[in-house]
């Protein structure tokens, strides 16, 4: 009751991109380090354990980059033609890659030696993966087949040839070593179980050539991309379509999970990477790249984002560390530091100290609640003292006037309410009058402030109508008049358009009414009858009573 209530500043929400937790998080990526390769980057795979080496397959080689130094750690060039889909085993020791001649080659990262060659595909192999048990390899080939290989014996265990077009996408389950998924240019995504050699267990139609597939870590949902669409399928429900998201305007090429599986990232030929929330499939942020994105890699800690592009560029972006942030913006970090300093939160009860009795921690220690330092702005201070002219002066400083016009309008509003506008505006010299006039001219067109600004302008005209003005202020008054005239003209145009629209709408509604048919109400839904078993059960219960 006794406290002064602050002046209400009415600020309308800004239209445009909202600053959310996600935008802040993804904005913290540093300027990218780019490396140029000799051909489009086909595939990027990230080692799942530290030091998160990145395997990049492009043209006829597979390179393993160190994500910190951006240097090539290893490179494998024993391919006659293009190498595709190099993938690192979960222990980080082996790398596997497919190639144009239809072989799948296994290398040791440590010694760079070629350990195995899996021969048997008749077309190029674009994707190959280690299964979860680390001793099998799945390969997805352009000969429309998917094959499972045994690593030690270098033999083919099973081969599925169900697709009718190139198989360019595939992934393995992270839980079971027997489950893997393939996506093909024949628009289908198929789930295979190595224990049932007869064929695929689930087959769904994506609607366009499938570019990439991904299975969630829980293994209950898988995602496929292709065309401009992302589709989410329920695996447990036998391939029910859960969601269709179309946020890219060109083909989506790659798919990755980020932020511990809470975000999904897709890259596309439209040079964007979109980050989705995996619950709602709403886009929370967009990353931009200079060229069509073909492949994406994100380290498990979200520290590095690697994108491979069609023109052979690899862009590697690091997350800003705290030290870097501090170096960039020393002022802000100081503020944060100050805040984090803890004050004394506990104090002893005075009663306890004065009287000699035993200490009871439950009642004698008071937890100090955080006291809000009641910040009173300068204009409120003057309003509180009924110094209206000074209050108006403080909000007519160039910074507030230009950057935060809502504050100026709020104070003017309060002055109108207090009936103090006249005294605040009267008796001003040239310079202060000009600041008011420029403010009015600039904001009189703003519909959210217009009613108050018009009120202020009227009062101002009333006061200075008869007084002699300097040429400078006279010019400003004329400028204000010009603004008003322009606004009037503009509103006139708008009303004309509104009138036209009304005619159009009226004609359509009359037509609609003529041709309208009343919706016949459906027959009342029959009450559900209990089944025979349920009925039997019900009578049983009855008998017990």
């Amino acid at each position, binding site marked *: *009751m*006794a406290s002064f*209530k602050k002046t209400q500043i009415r600020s309308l929400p800004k239209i445009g991109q909202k600053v*959310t937790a996600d935008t802040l998080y993804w904005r913290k990526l540093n300027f990218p380090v780019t490396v140029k390769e000799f051909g489009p980057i086909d595939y990027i795979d990230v080692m799942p354990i530290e030091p998160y080496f990145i395997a990049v397959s492009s043209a006829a080689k597979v390179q393993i980059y160190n994500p910190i130094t951006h240097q090539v750690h290893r490179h494998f060039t024993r391919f006659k033609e293009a190498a595709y889909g190099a993938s690192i085993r979960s222990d980080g020791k082996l790398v596997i890659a497919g190639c144009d001649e239809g072989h799948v080659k296994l290398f040791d990262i440590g010694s760079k030696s070629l350990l195995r060659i899996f021969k048997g595909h008749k077309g190029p192999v674009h994707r190959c993966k280690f299964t979860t048990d680390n001793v099998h390899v799945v390969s997805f080939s352009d000969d429309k087949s998917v094959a499972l290989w045994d690593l030690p014996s270098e033999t083919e265990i099973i081969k599925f040839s169900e697709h009718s077009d190139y198989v360019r996408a595939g992934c393995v389950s992270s839980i079971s070593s027997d489950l893997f998924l393939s996506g093909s240019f024949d628009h289908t995504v198929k789930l295979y179980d190595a224990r049932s050699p007869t064929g695929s267990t689930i087959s769904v139609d994506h609607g366009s050539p499938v570019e990439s597939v991904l299975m969630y870590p829980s293994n209950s949902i898988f995602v496929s991309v292709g065309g401009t669409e992302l589709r989410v399928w329920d695996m447990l429900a036998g391939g029910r379509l859960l969601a269709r998201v179309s946020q890219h305007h060109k083909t989506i090429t790659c798919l990755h999970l980020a932020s511990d599986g809470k975000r999904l990232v897709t890259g596309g030929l439209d040079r964007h990477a979109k980050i989705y929330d995996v619950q*709602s499939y709403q886009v929370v942020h967009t990353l931009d790249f200079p060229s069509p994105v073909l492949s994406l890699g994100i380290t498990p800690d979200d520290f590095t984002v690697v994108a491979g592009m069609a023109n052979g560029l690899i862009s590697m972006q690091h997350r800003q560390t705290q030290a870097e942030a501090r170096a960039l913006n020393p002022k802000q970090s100081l503020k944060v530091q100050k805040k984090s300093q803890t004050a004394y939160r506990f104090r002893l009860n005075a009663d306890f100290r004065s009287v000699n009795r035993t200490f009871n921690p439950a009642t004698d220690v008071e937890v100090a609640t955080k006291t809000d330092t009641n910040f009173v702005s300068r204009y409120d201070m003057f309003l509180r003292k009924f110094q209206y002219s000074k209050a108006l002066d403080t909000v007519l400083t160039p910074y507030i006037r230009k950057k935060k016009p809502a504050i100026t309008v709020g104070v003017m509003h309060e002055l*109108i*309410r207090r*009936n103090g506008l006249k005294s605040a505006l009267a008796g001003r010299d040239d310079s202060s009058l000009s600041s008011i006039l420029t403010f009015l001219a600039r904001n009189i067109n703003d519909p959210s402030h217009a009613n108050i600004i018009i*009120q202020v302008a009227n009062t101002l005209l009333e006061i200075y109508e008869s007084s002699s003005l300097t040429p400078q202020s006279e010019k400003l008054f004329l400028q204000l008049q010009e603004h008003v005239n322009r606004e009037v003209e503009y509103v006139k145009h708008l009303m004309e358009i509104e009138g036209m629209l009304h005619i159009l709408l009226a004609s359509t509604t009359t037509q609609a009414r003529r041709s309208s048919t009343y919706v016949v109400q459906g027959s009342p839904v029959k009450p559900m009858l209990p089944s025979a078993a349920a009925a039997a059960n019900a009578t049983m219960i009855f008998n017990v*009573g």
Partner: protein
Amino acid sequence: MVKMANKKTRGPDKTQANTSDIVVKKLDDATDIVRQPPVFTNDSKYICIASGRQIGIYSVESAEKVHSLEEHTFDVIGLAIKDDNILLSCDASGETIEWNINNGTTLKKAPLVVAGIKEFHSFHYPGNGKVLVATPSTYTTNMSSLWIVDSHTRPRKLFADIKSTPHSIAFGCNQGNGSLVVVALQDHSVVVKDITNGVDKKHMTDQRKFTCVALHSEKLIMATGDISGRILIWHDFVHKSRPVKTVYHWHTLPVNSVCFSSEGEYLYSGGSEKVMVKWRLGMSRKQFLPRMGSSIKYIVNAPDNICVATSHSDNAIRFIDSTNKINRAIIGLVKHDPIRGFADTEPIKESVMPTGLVFDPRSHGIFFNAQAGFLQLFDPQKNSLIFNMDVANRNVLTDERNLVIGNAEVLRVAVSPTGEWLATLEVWSNMSAGYHDMNLKFWRYDAVQANYELNTDVTMPHQDRVTALCFQPGLLGTEMPCLVSIGRDLKFKIWRLVDDTDIYRQKESWSCDVAGDFRKLTPSALSFSEDGSLMAIAFQDTVTLWDPTSINLNTTLSHTLVQEPIELMEFGRDNCFRYLVCASKSALYAWDVISQGLVWKVGQLHSSVRCLVPDPKSCYMAAVLQNSEVFVFSPSSSKPVHSVPKMNSSEPIAALFVPRPNPLASGPEWLINSRLLIVDDQQEFLCVDDVSSAGFNQKLTTPISHMDSLPWTPFSAMKAEKQISAAKQLVPVVHQTSGIQGYKSVQSLLETSASALPPMSRICSLFMSDLMIKHGPKAVTAKVNSVDRTSTDLPLSNGHIDSKTQDFSEETTLQKLLTLDCQWLVETVK
């Protein structure tokens, strides 16, 4: 009304008999506590406050009521402390009562005898058995004469034609010779009388009218406040004809009250600026306590100087401690100050209580206006204020000397059917500037915090004054709630709750869904049918019926018989759901919504209908006329069930049916579940109720023990502990269960755990018989006899025939019950 009266005489006699014991009562507890200045007891532990006919004794420490003294039959006009714990009070008829403050008992009653005068204005007690009373002046109205009454001499007239406010009389002792000095104010002068020495003085200043006066307790110093805000301190005013004066001028508005501290070092003053000023006498230093919420009426200082009590016009008494901070308050029901500048253009209701009475289904309280920009929730069952809510959240602005400055006022309130949402419309308007602000605010009740949270604030919901707000009833929480507003900008708008949730937050807000108009006519009234499926908006004389979900115009209703603009409109409730009752300036009529015809019309009313309120618990409706006649009727017919003749000269403002917590045992149907509350233009609450139903009389009977006035020693601390525990057992909660059939058996069934219950077939009959209405004992025995005779061939006891032979006595009792229960069944089967 001629018709109505005729019909009443022709009506059945039964209703006449019933209505004879329906009375109109005044709700006394709702009266204000700031009409008279409060009085501190000598030990400064209690404060005595007069409110209407009652006197409340409150503890200063806790601001809780300790005693309620109710013996006076007229309004109390003055309080005084006679001895250490004797309170002297006087009412307007001149009856004085002495009370024991510690236990609230009456000690002595005596009438004041002053020259046959029956009416008194104010009462003061200077001590030594002498009493000062002000009586109406014989010649000039609104003025008083002051008399001194002594026990052994005849009453003596001291002054004639003095101001009649309690603050225009002061008395003190001349310490020099122990004489009694009395001062009183006239418009432009101060009259002084030294009673013992017989000195008379009259001091005049200039043309500024005096407003209040106070005397120093020890020295001969007088302080007067005047209409310009100036305070004058007069020195030695008894003997000198031109006394020395000191001017203290800070206030811009009239000074309402001045008060010396008991030591005489300080002077407190207050007025409509809502600031209490503490002057140090003889120095230029002053302290302020600003923003006290409402203008100060009286300032009273405690004898021990520890605190000061201020009475405010918002019906609150606040205690200010020695550090100049408000630390406690006694808050009563707030009277809304009529909105200035409204009275000439709008009906009186719009300025006195624009929100009317709005029932809150959640707390069973009533929302209505408090001070400007505030809303209060009043509990009619307990006659107490639940809370006072700041709707505008603006600094309350005070007038300047020549300038009226308005504050934001709450004009309309609506509560959603579940009580979860509260919609308020606040308006600030300045007639001279031609500028107005309007805010429609939606508040959501937060059950955890137990307060309302602002959800949406809409600026300028309509371009002109909003006439009515109404939530759609009948929604069961499955649909988004919906609010309809109509305004003088010829539009009606439908506001809906919109889900604005995204992955980061849960958010709902209100937004305008539809804005519509009808033939460019002004909408004047709005009503929803009870189930919320039909919305009726009156446009002048035409009623339009809309489907609230699709906003399709279903029908328009108009008739040549009824061509006046509709002012009030309500749908019937319960089995009268199909009737829509409309009131215009001189007629009351009902439409049948289903057959779309005019059902009845009562024309040529004595005066226009002020309120039309449906009873939520029955099908009846009450029409309150401007001349304070009340008619209760069923919307299906024009015959009133009950009518209340003119009550008094006051004009009703708003009315509401308030549900009762427990239904009446007997009475007319419309009174069983609810009673009718009416507010008049003085903001007094009147209640149309059955004579038998007593109000919620909660007597505070705990006596203050003499230990309270003991010093704080370890022994007294032990004693005091007991006292506190005794005070706690105050409100006994008694559920009325005796009248409910079979309450005990239901209770036992519910309390026994399911696993421990005997088989349902065993207890079913017993349970059912408990629920049945018992016949007289004779009838039962007769039936039992007959059963006994025929029991052998009764097929009812199918499973029990075998056991019958073994345990016959138990069986017969069971049989009795069984046959008792199932007779109705046997009959129906046959």
